[in-house]
C-alpha cells in the first residue's frame, strides 16, 4: 500500500492566504463533446480495449488502448486494421451474425450490426474509408496505445452523435479459428486469410458523462524533484494558479516545484 513513512518533505511556500468558493456545474469546454466506449472481444479474441474521442468542431482526438490482440503475423507485428463503422444498427454483432455458420463473424457478416466504414483509425495519413485496408498504417501488435488528432468527416460525426458509430478492431490469431475457417480467405481482401480481416474488438461510442475527459493520471501527490546535480535543470513549476474558483490573496506567491509524475501521451501508436 502507500509508503507513508517515506513521504518527501518539500519546502514551505510563501503563500499568504487563500480563499475559495465552490464552482458552478460546468458545461463542456467551448462546444467540445466527448465520446467513449469499452471494446469487447468478438470471435473469441479475448482482447480488451477502450476508446475515447474528444470532438471540437470537426477536430477529433482519438485515444485508444488495446491489449490481448494477436501479436505476430508472418514473423512481424500483427497489423490490426481499425475503423469507426457507421450507419448500421449501432451495435456489435451477436454470434447469430455468423450467417455462413463457419464459426467466424466476418467483417461482412458484422455489417448489418455496425455498418460501413466511416473513418479509418490509421496511424498516419488518410483517415477515410480508402485507407481501410492499408495495413502499413494499422495498429501493430498485441497491445498498443493510439492517440491521434485529425479532421473527422461529417458522416462519422453525425453517426457518432446519433449513437450509431462503432469502433471495430480487426485481425484474429488464425490458430483460434475452427479448422475449416483457418483455410478460408478474407471476404474483404482475397489475398489475405479470413482471420486477418475479421473483427476482434468492438464497441459502440456513447456520449461521455464527462464533459471533458481528464488526461493521464491525477497528480495528487505533492512532489519535488530531487536536487539535480546539474543546477540548470529546474523543476516543472507549471501549476494550478487560479484556474478554477481558487483565488490567491494579494501578496501570495505560489511557486511550487511539482514534477510531473506521468507522461502518458503519445502522438502515435507505441508499444
Amino acid at each position: 500500500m502507500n509508503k507513508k513513512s517515506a513521504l518527501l518533505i518539500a519546502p514551505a511556500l510563501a503563500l499568504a492566504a487563500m480563499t475559495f468558493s465552490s464552482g458552478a456545474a460546468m458545461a463542456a469546454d467551448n462546444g467540445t463533446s466527448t465520446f467513449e466506449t469499452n471494446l469487447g472481444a468478438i470471435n473469441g479474441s479475448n482482447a480488451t480495449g477502450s476508446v475515447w474521442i474528444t470532438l471540437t468542431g470537426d477536430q477529433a482526438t482519438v485515444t485508444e488502448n488495446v491489449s490481448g490482440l494477436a501479436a505476430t503475423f508472418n514473423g512481424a507485428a500483427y497489423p490490426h486494421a481499425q475503423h469507426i463503422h457507421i450507419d448500421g444498427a449501432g451495435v456489435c454483432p451477436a454470434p447469430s451474425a455468423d450467417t455462413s455458420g463457419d464459426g467466424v463473424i466476418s467483417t461482412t457478416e458484422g455489417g448489418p450490426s455496425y455498418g460501413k466504414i466511416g473513418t479509418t483509425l490509421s496511424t498516419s495519413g488518410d483517415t477515410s474509408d480508402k485507407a481501410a485496408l492499408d495495413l502499413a498504417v494499422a495498429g501493430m501488435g498485441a497491445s498498443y496505445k493510439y492517440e491521434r488528432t485529425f479532421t473527422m468527416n461529417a458522416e462519422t460525426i453525425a453517426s457518432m452523435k446519433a449513437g450509431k458509430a462503432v469502433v471495430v478492431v480487426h485481425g484474429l490469431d488464425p490458430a483460434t479459428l475452427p479448422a475449416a475457417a483457418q483455410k478460408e480467405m478474407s471476404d474483404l481482401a482475397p489475398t489475405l486469410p479470413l482471420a486477418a480481416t475479421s473483427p476482434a474488438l468492438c464497441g459502440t461510442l456513447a456520449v461521455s458523462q464527462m464533459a471533458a475527459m481528464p488526461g493521464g493520471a491525477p497528480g495528487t501527490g505533492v512532489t519535488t524533484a530531487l536536487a539535480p546535480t546539474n543546477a540548470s535543470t529546474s523543476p516543472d513549476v507549471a501549476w494550478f494558479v487560479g484556474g478554477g474558483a481558487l483565488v490567491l490573496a494579494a501578496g501570495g506567491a505560489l511557486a511550487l516545484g511539482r514534477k510531473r509524475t506521468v507522461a502518458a501521451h503519445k502522438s502515435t501508436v507505441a508499444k
Partner: protein
Amino acid sequence: MLAASAPVSLSVPDIGLTTPLLSLGRDAKGEAEVPPGEAGSPAGWYKYSPTPGEQGPSVILGHVNTTTIPEGVFYRLHELKPGEQFSVSRADGSVLVFGVDRTEIFQKASFPTLAVYGNTDRAEIRLITCGGYEPSTGEFVENTVVYGHLLSSTK
C-alpha cells in the same frame, strides 16, 4: 439520481475527514488540475465530471501529502473499506450519503482512464489520491481510487 448542483464539502467520518471542496478544471495539457499543496489544503471536485448525485462518475481529487507535513487531505483515504459511508454537501443544500464499493490501486503509467472515468448507470463517485511514493525518484507511482455510489440524500 439528482439534478446537478456543485459540491461544497466532503465528510468522511471513518477517517476523521471533513473538507471544503474546490472546483478544479483542466490544465493546458488536458490533465485534471489538483488543489494547492500546502498543509490544510482542501480536496476538489473536477468540474467537468458529473456533480455528486448526478448519473455518472463524480470525481473528487485530494493530495495524499503536503509541502510541509505528510498528512494531506486524503492521507488516510486508503483506509476506507467497502460498505463504509461518507457524505457530500451540495450548493443546493442537499446532503448526499455515498457507500464505498471498493478501493483500487493503479500504476500511474497504466492508469485505466475509462475504468475510473467511464460512464456508469447510476450516481457514482471517485475519491482519488496518490500512493506508492518512490524515494529514489521523488515520485508517486500509483493512484488510489475509492469507488462509491449514492445511497440516499436529504435536503
